[in-house]
Structures are given as structure tokens and as C-alpha cells.
């Protein structure tokens, strides 16, 4: 028989291992073919590996080939092996080919790769740990082990894709990898190149079909109704009958909120937005909005909750912005702090306090932590060479120097990177460097800097993580990023900068330096609390009693998971460290990224001008929250979700329930006589409520929103089947039935209003006002489904909750935010007030490009009119740049003459 293989085809691994394991390779001829060669005459698409049998027949399935080798060696088929192989073909392979495609062909890393296979890996791990044997289907390693090992090897041979917490999988994989046939197969196929050996083959394969049509996983999975046991029904009915009595005691509202011994004290922070940038929708869902949902939920559970955030205000960018706008840095911060506060107020973010980092408390606490680190020997000194502009009397950050690229000679290379050749540049290597602000030539000066000795603190951080991570709700991406930082080894990090706008360094010789923002930005949480209450230490030096939840996008994980904990542990002052680090992936806009400079995407201040209420924005952003993988904002999808989920499902149900009470029962909740069908519905709702609680306790915000929509779907169905509008016209029994259905429905609506509160606070309040829900029931969400609107309760006036979004409206909004508008009217007020550093950057690049065009034309001695036209374009661009930077118009013109 003859085996056909191809360079880098992953299927060769299990096949060669099985051949080596189950029979000698003596009678096996191996031929290598190209990845696009059709070996099997009856298959249209090429496939390898393929085994041609002596009978002339072909085996083209990897598992079937392995099975054949095992059968030849006398092995008998069994159910468990069949089950594993079927699972491998239907579940593991689709997930694995996606992961390998991401890793090998698209060059993605980390959670992007691990995400698709995580569930499959956990399945193997669970099955192994439940069995007493270390192998999948028998006492010794056998067919199932070889097939799965071969499939997984390319991915798992890189330890970063073998999650440590999957201990059983770990040892199974190690055992197999050390066996001789497996080792030899691995060497033959991967050739010591790791997973990259698969690239030539995988590149030629079509994209895995699981990748197609999975751009945004916004679709809810179809729910199936679980079967209910008698006990479950009895428990649900008993809870229902307790009514308002079943509510937990309400926590009195305090000011300030302080931890209470013996209670659940929840401290919630959202990453501090940088003051200069107007946040876009991705920033909003990434931290403040996600944290808000959890804070509101936590308050509904009567947990003692404090939710804090504020603007991060120090640093180079603020200083430069101030120069541009001709204001003092503090004035810039005041101006933009107000912009931020307004946006979050509009989005209904329920901060207990929204502070800022430019306060005396920030200086006091940062300097204290620094002094303690210094006294304990965790701070190093070293000399750093830097460019200094004598005229501006300051050291220049990389992005404020321009010069000639040392590699390609490009004249307008930036201090960190050359735009022409793309090489990374060390600013002091630039030829003819220029200060971007005053255009004079900076000089190289050495400057003393302080470093945080992270390597020395590494063990403490690792020990702390080992204690904290198991059983906590850190998101997988946060775990992954933190682990990979530790694995790659920690390096000392510079914590000082030659700037004025920052927290001063309290050390002789460092009077004209400040702390680098990443060192003191995370201390901002502490100082903001200190500005909220002078008893801030009760929150921040109380790790035994406080659970700290920190929300952020994944780029912020290293500072919250490694750097700040290092400082805090090194300071040895019993600081409260993060218990649950909740990191989101990224939100894209339609098919690309949000871009301030190109005017692409919706930014916080613009959302209000769309005429779409804040709660609809909240709903849609939470519905597509990038939990587990990147997601995308899409206008069309937003329209669809508003019209289907909110209008037709949730809004329709709540409105119908209320209308029936008003129209058929004069506004009074009717008597309810529960039949067994009603009890079953009640139990389904109660179970879904439990599910909602389980998800939110684990901060699975997006998934918990699905539970709300599921309950309202049940409700709609219930009304549809029971037709109270017909029964109300019938006899006594029918009228009673109509009453029961209406009463139960309106109680479900009341429950939904409370479950909805964390997501859509305004809509929730509107429902509660319409139903006249008693105030205690509005403020607490118990674990069971209670009858909070008893018979005889009078409701208020019922009116529709949601509005239909129309296609024209959405199309025009889509146009408005697609970037076309920014080009059409670049000189409007938006340009002046909201030009971020990126916009300036983009314009600078445009100017540079246009400059090149003009120079080229001149060099070619082109037509004068043509040159004049291009020069006019250049001047116009420079004008826009000046406007965006807030400079007077004469400056660029004067400079041009030189």
C-alpha cells in the first residue's frame, strides 16, 4: 500500500504516528505530492493524506487510515473509540482548523487562537479527569489517543496554547508526546519549525467554513425548553406565593459608601479614560458601560457597592495640547473633563464618583507609594540618553522629534519610526533632528531616570496570582496576557519622565521630573476614592473585606494585572488588589476600526445627536459586547435588533400585558388561579432568572441580556397560546382564565423591568412607572420570581416603550459616520475643538505626501499649471493642519519659504 502525504499537511501527524505505533512501516511506501494534487480519482477537491490500498481502493479520511493501521495490528473496535473519533471529526476539527488558520495563516495570537478551541480542550480535560485511566478509551494508549494527539499537536506543542488549568489534558498530552512513534511523526512533519511548518500547506487551503458567515456572533442561540421536575415547580410556586414578603431587606442608602464588616463589599472601577480623547463607542462598552451594568446589578442584589471612575489627565499629550490651544494644562483638563462627564451622564452611567487624577491626593498617595518602594529597595537608577530642545528647555518625547531617517534618508522621519521605510528608529540616531514645536535642533543629553525593579517583585506577583486566579472571574484574555508577561520575564520599567505636567518625583536630583503616567495612572483609583471620602483606606487597604472588580479593554491588562500589583505589593502597605479583572476584546466599526482622524465611527458626543435614545445605544452595545472575541458595530444590525428584539419582542410583550390589565380589568390586576400550565411557565421564568443571576455573578454581561429576551419570548408565546382577548368575551371560566393569564403576564413584565434595570435604566423606570411597581420591588432583584403585583393592584397609564428605526434614518446615519463628512467639511468647528492627536498625525502625513508630489513634479520640470495646482492643494492641507493644531495660519506659510 502507498501513503500519499504533502509538506506541512497536519493530517500526516496522526497517520505517521499510527503507522509507527500499530505496525512496522516496512510495507508502507510513502510518496510526497503537492498540496493541490488530486490523488483520489473520484474526489473533486485534493485531499491528503491518502492511503491507496492493495485492492486499489482509497482511504481519504485521516481517522480511517489510522483506524486501518490499528485494525491490521489486531485491535478491536469499541464504542468509546468510535465516540471519540466521531467527536474529533464533527467538533474538534472545525474548531481546530479555525484556530490553526488564525495562528498560521493570519498570524493572530493569544486568545484569538485559543478562543475557538477552548471548549473542545475543556471537553477532553473533563473526560480525562473523570476517568481513572490516563488515556481516552482504554488502559493503554490507543487509536483515539493517537488521532486526537495528532490533531492537537501542532497547536499544543506551543505551551502558551495549552492552558495550565487543564491539568489532565496537560499530562495526557505530555505522555503521548514523549512516545517514540509520536516523537518521530512530529519530527518528520514539523521539522523542528513548530507550527509554521504547516504554513505552505494551510495557505493553499480554502478558509475553514466555520470562519465564513461568522463575522459577528450577534445571533442568539435557539433556546430549548428544559424538562421540569416536580421539585423545581414546587420551589418556584412557593417563591411566587411569598409575594412582596419575599424581597430581601433593602440596604439603606449611605453617603459615603464604606465597606461593612461581614457583608459583601464590592468596589468597581472602570479604566480611566485619557482626558484628551473623546471616547468612541468601543471605549464606552469596553469599560464604563460594562462596569455600570455590573454596578447596577450589584446594587440590585443589595451588595454594598462603590463604583468609581475619572479622567486620566497627566502626560505629554496634555502638555502639547495645551501649547496648541494656548491654554494652561490644567485648563485643558478642566475643559475635557467636563466633556467626558457630560458624555457619561448622557449614557446614564451610575458612577458614585467621577473624579480626576490632577489632585493633591494623587500627589500624596503616589509619592507615598514611591517612598515605600524606594525605602524597600525596589527602585533602580540609571542613565538614559535623550534628545533635549534647548530652546523649549525640555526633553523631547519620541513623537516630538523629526529628522532624516538613518536608514533610508527620508527627510521627515518621526522620532520613533520612519514613515517611508517603516523601520523603528531610536530618536537619538536621527540625522538632523528637529524639535517639532520650535524647529530648532535638539542635542543629545543624558538624563537620570528611576526604574521600578519588576524582576525583584516578580515572585511576589506570581504568588499573589496563584492565590487569586483559581476560582476568580478573571476573563480568559486577562489570564492569558498576565501569564504571557510573566512567562516572558519581567524587566525593569522606567517610571520617570522629563516633563512638567505630572506628579512631581520627591527625590533629590529629580526636581524637574515627574512620574511616568503608567506608574501613577492606576494609583488614580486610590486618589479618586480619597477625593470621594477621607476614609478611602477602608476600601483600598482592606483586601480581606473588599472584592475589587476592575473593568478595561484588553490593552490595559498588563498595567492592572502586573505593574500596579507589583507596586502595591512592594509598598507592603496591605493594599486591596484586583480580585476580578474583567477585560473585553475590541469593538470594530462596521468593517473597520473607529478612526477620529478619518471621521469614521460614532464617538460619545455624537451619539446624542443621532436622535436615538441613550438606552437603545446601551442595549445594542451590550448586545454586541466583545466578550470572548472581537465584535463589530453595525448600523443595519442595530436597526434589526431594535425592531425585532426591543420593539417586537420585549416592548410588545410588556405593552400587551399592561394593556390587557387596563382594557379588560379597568387597570386592576385580576385574580390569578394558576393551572399546571401556568405553574410550568412560572418555573421556566424562575429558571431563566436563576440563569441570569449565574451569568451576571460571573460578569457575563452580554449573555445575561439574552435571558431577559428569552423570558419575554416565553411571555409572548404564553399570551399567544392563551388568547386572553378572546376568552374575556366568553363565559365565567373563560373570563377567569383571561384574568389569570393577564395577571401572570403583567407580573412577568414587572420582573423584566427589574432585570432590565442594569441594561436600560430609563426604560426600566418607565415600565415601573406604568405598572406602578411598589418601590421596594424596583430596588431589589431576589433570586426567585415573586408575585410583586398582587390581585387588586392598580397600574398606571400604559404606553409604547420603543420606536421603530426606519431604513432611511439608519442609511443617512451610516453615511454621516462613514468618513465622507469629515472630508466634505474639514473646517467646521469639529476640526478645532475635537482634533485629537490622531487627526493631527493623519494631516501631517497628508502634508508630507503632498510635499513629495510637489517636489517630484518640480524635479521633472512639469507643466507650471500642474505644479501650481498641486501647490495649492499642499497649502490647503497645511491650512487644515494648522487649524487642527490650533496654530495661527501664518506659521506654516512662513516656514514654507525657508
Amino acid at each position, binding site marked *: 500500500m502507498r501513503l500519499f502525504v504533502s509538506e506541512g499537511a497536519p493530517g500526516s501527524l496522526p497517520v505517521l504516528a499510527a503507522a509507527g505505533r500499530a505496525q512496522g512501516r516496512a510495507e508502507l511506501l510513502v510518496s510526497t505530492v503537492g498540496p493541490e494534487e488530486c490523488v483520489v*480519482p*473520484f*474526489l*473533486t*477537491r485534493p485531499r491528503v493524506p491518502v492511503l491507496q*490500498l492493495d*485492492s486499489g*481502493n482509497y*482511504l*481519504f*479520511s485521516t*481517522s*480511517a*487510515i489510522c*483506524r*486501518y493501521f490499528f*485494525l*491490521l495490528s489486531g485491535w478491536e*473496535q469499541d*464504542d468509546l473509540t*468510535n*465516540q471519540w*473519533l*466521531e*467527536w474529533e*471529526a*464533527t467538533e474538534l*476539527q472545525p474548531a481546530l482548523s479555525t484556530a490553526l488558520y488564525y495562528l498560521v495563516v493570519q498570524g493572530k495570537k493569544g486568545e484569538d487562537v485559543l478562543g475557538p478551541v477552548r471548549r473542545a480542550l475543556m471537553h477532553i480535560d473533563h473526560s480525562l479527569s473523570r476517568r481513572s485511566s490516563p488515556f481516552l478509551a482504554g488502559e493503554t494508549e490507543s487509536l483515539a489517543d493517537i488521532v486526537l494527539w495528532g490533531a492537537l499537536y501542532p497547536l499544543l506543542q506551543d505551551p502558551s496554547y495549552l492552558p495550565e488549568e487543564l491539568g489532565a489534558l496537560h499530562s495526557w498530552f505530555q505522555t503521548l508526546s514523549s512516545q517514540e512513534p509520536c516523537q518521530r511523526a512530529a519530527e518528520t512533519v514539523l521539522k523542528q519549525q513548530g507550527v509554521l511548518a504547516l504554513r505552505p500547506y494551510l495557505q493553499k487551503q480554502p478558509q475553514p467554513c466555520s470562519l465564513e458567515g461568522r463575522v459577528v456572533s450577534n445571533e442568539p442561540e435557539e433556546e430549548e425548553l428544559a424538562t421540569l421536575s416536580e421539585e423545581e415547580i414546587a420551589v418556584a410556586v412557593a417563591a411566587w406565593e411569598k409575594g412582596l414578603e419575599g424581597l430581601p431587606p433593602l440596604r439603606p442608602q449611605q453617603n459615603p459608601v464604606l465597606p461593612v464588616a461581614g457583608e459583601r463589599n464590592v468596589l468597581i472601577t472602570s479604566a480611566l479614560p485619557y482626558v484628551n480623547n473623546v471616547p468612541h463607542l468601543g471605549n464606552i462598552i469596553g469599560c464604563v458601560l460594562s462596569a455600570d451594568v455590573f454596578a447596577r446589578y450589584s446594587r440590585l442584589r443589595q451588595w454594598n457597592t462603590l463604583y468609581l471612575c475619572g479622567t486620566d489627565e497627566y502626560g505629554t499629550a496634555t502638555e502639547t495640547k495645551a501649547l496648541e490651544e494656548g491654554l494652561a494644562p490644567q485648563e485643558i483638563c478642566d475643559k475635557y473633563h467636563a466633556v467626558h462627564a457630560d458624555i457619561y451622564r448622557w449614557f446614564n452611567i451610575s458612577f458614585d464618583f467621577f473624579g480626576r487624577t490632577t489632585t493633591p491626593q494623587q500627589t500624596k498617595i503616589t509619592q507615598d507609594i514611591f517612598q515605600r518602594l524606594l525605602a524597600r529597595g525596589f527602585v533602580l537608577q540609571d542613565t538614559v540618553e535623550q534628545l533635549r530642545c534647548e530652546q523649549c528647555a525640555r526633553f523631547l518625547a519620541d513623537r516630538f522629534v523629526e529628522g532624516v531617517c538613518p536608514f533610508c534618508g527620508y527627510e521627515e522621519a518621526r522620532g520613533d519610526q520612519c514613515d517611508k521605510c517603516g523601520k523603528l528608529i531610536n530618536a537619538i540616531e536621527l540625522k538632523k533632528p528637529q524639535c517639532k514645536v520650535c524647529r530648532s535642533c535638539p542635542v543629545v543629553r543624558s538624563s537620570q531616570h528611576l526604574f521600578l525593579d519588576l524582576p525583584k517583585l516578580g515572585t511576589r506577583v506570581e504568588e499573589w496570582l496563584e492565590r487569586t486566579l483559581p476560582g476568580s472571574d478573571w476573563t480568559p484574555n486577562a489570564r492569558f496576557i498576565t501569564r504571557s508577561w510573566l512567562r516572558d520575564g519581567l524587566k525593569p520599567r522606567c517610571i520617570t519622565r522629563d516633563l512638567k505636567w505630572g506628579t512631581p518625583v520627591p527625590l533629590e536630583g529629580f526636581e524637574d521630573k515627574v512620574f511616568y503616567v503608567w506608574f501613577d495612572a492606576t494609583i488614580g483609583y486610590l486618589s479618586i476614592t480619597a477625593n470621594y471620602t477621607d476614609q478611602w483606606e477602608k476600601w483600598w487597604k482592606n483586601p480581606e473585606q473588599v472584592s475589587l472588580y476592575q473593568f478595561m479593554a484588553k490593552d490595559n491588562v498588563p498595567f492592572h494585572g502586573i505593574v500596579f500589583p507589583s507596586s502595591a505589593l512592594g509598598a507592603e502597605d496591605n493594599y486591596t488588589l484586583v480580585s476580578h479583572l474583567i477585560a473585553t476584546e475590541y469593538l470594530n466599526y462596521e468593517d473597520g476600526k473607529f478612526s477620529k482622524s478619518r471621521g469614521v465611527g460614532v464617538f460619545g458626543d455624537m451619539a446624542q445627536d443621532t436622535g436615538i435614545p441613550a438606552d437603545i445605544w446601551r442595549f445594542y452595545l451590550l448586545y454586541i459586547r466583545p466578550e470572548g472575541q472581537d465584535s463589530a458595530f453595525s448600523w443595519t444590525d442595530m436597526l434589526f435588533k431594535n425592531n425585532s428584539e426591543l420593539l417586537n419582542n420585549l416592548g410588545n410583550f410588556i405593552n400587551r400585558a399592561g394593556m390587557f390589565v387596563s382594557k379588560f380589568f379597568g387597570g386592576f390586576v385580576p385574580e390569578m388561579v394558576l393551572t399546571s400550565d401556568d405553574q410550568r411557565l412560572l418555573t421556566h421564568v424562575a429558571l431563566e432568572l436563576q440563569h441570569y443571576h449565574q451569568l451576571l455573578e460571573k460578569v457575563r454581561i452580554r449573555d445575561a441580556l439574552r435571558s431577559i429576551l428569552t423570558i419575554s419570548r416565553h411571555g409572548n408565546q404564553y399570551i399567544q397560546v392563551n388568547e386572553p382577548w378572546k376568552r374575556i368575551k366568553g363565559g365565567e371560566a373563560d373570563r377567569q382564565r383571561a384574568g389569570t393569564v393577564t395577571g401572570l403576564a403583567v407580573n412577568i413584565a414587572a420582573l423584566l423591568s427589574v432585570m432590565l434595570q442594569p441594561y436600560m435604566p430609563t426604560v426600566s423606570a418607565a415600565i415601573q412607572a406604568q405598572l406602578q411597581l411598589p418601590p421596594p420591588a424596583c430596588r431589589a432583584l431576589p433570586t426567585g420570581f415573586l408575585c410583586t403585583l398582587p390581585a387588586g393592584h392598580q397600574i398606571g397609564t400604559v404606553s409604547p416603550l420603543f420606536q421603530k428605526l426606519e431604513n432611511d434614518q439608519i442609511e443617512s446615519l451610516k453615511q454621516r459616520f462613514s468618513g465622507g463628512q469629515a472630508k466634505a467639511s474639514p473646517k467646521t468647528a469639529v476640526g478645532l475643538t475635537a482634533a485629537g492627536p490622531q487627526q493631527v498625525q493623519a494631516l501631517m502625513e497628508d502634508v508630507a505626501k503632498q510635499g513629495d508630489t510637489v517636489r517630484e513634479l518640480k524635479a521633472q520640470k512639469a507643466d507650471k499649471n500642474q505644479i501650481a495646482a498641486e501647490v495649492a492643494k499642499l497649502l490647503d492641507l497645511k491650512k487644515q493642519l494648522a487649524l487642527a493644531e490650533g496654530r495661527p495660519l501664518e506659521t506654516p506659510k512662513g516656514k514654507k519659504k525657508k
Partner: protein
Amino acid sequence: IPVLQTNNGPSLTGLTTIAAHLVKQANKEYLLGSTPEEKAVVQQWLEYRVTRVDGRSSKDDICAVLKDLNSYLEDKVYLTGYNFTLADILLYYGLHRFIVDLTVQEKEKYLNVSRWFCHIQHCPGIRQHLSSVVFIKNRLYTNSQ
């Protein structure tokens, strides 16, 4: 995905796994093949059924499956060659919903599949509640001559 709770031992998950288990319970192991080669071929087509036929509803995917099968069956009575096995049964069930919708011309285009399918649906006890698909014996277009 079907799950079978057996009387002795843990439950089994997966269509082909359960089918193979029931075949053994019924003492009809010959349906799984008798030689190593036949056994491997049976399992290969069972895998083909759950990965290539199930869950695919796009016309293109199904056309590709029918085209490949048609060319495979050119010189075969059953999927393993001369013996009727579980692979024939499960592939018959999997393909039924597509074959029902084929036009007369398409059935003629996939002549070998049609011959095999018609043969399997007439094996005793196989068709169960499924509708019998009609195949016309005389060809519509005799352009071969």
C-alpha cells in the same frame, strides 16, 4: 446530536457511534464490515455522512457531494463494493432529503448515485417512514449515440 442512554455503562453521543453500538447489540456485526479494509471503509463513509452531508444545505455543497459519490459508485454496488453495510444505510438516510428534491435531469446526471439510492431504498426494512423516490428507468435524452 443524538445521545443514547445504555442499560449498562455510560451514555453514548453521536449518530454513527450509536448506530454502530446498536448494530453490535443486534448481533449484525457484518454490517460494520468483515475485513480490516472493509471496516475502515465503512467508518470512513460514516464520517463522510456526519461531516460532509449533515448540516450542509447549500446547493453547491450537495452538488459536490453527489458528484464525488457518483464517480465513486461507478464500479460499485454498495459503498464497500459488494457488501451491504451500515455506511449504505446512514448515507441513504442522510441524502434522502436532497434526493427527493432532485429534478429528473439531475437524477440522470448522477446516474450511479440514483442507481445505488434506488437499490438501497428497496432493501427490506430500510425505507421506514421515508417517502419512496421515483427514478425513471428509460433515459430522457439518449445523446450517447
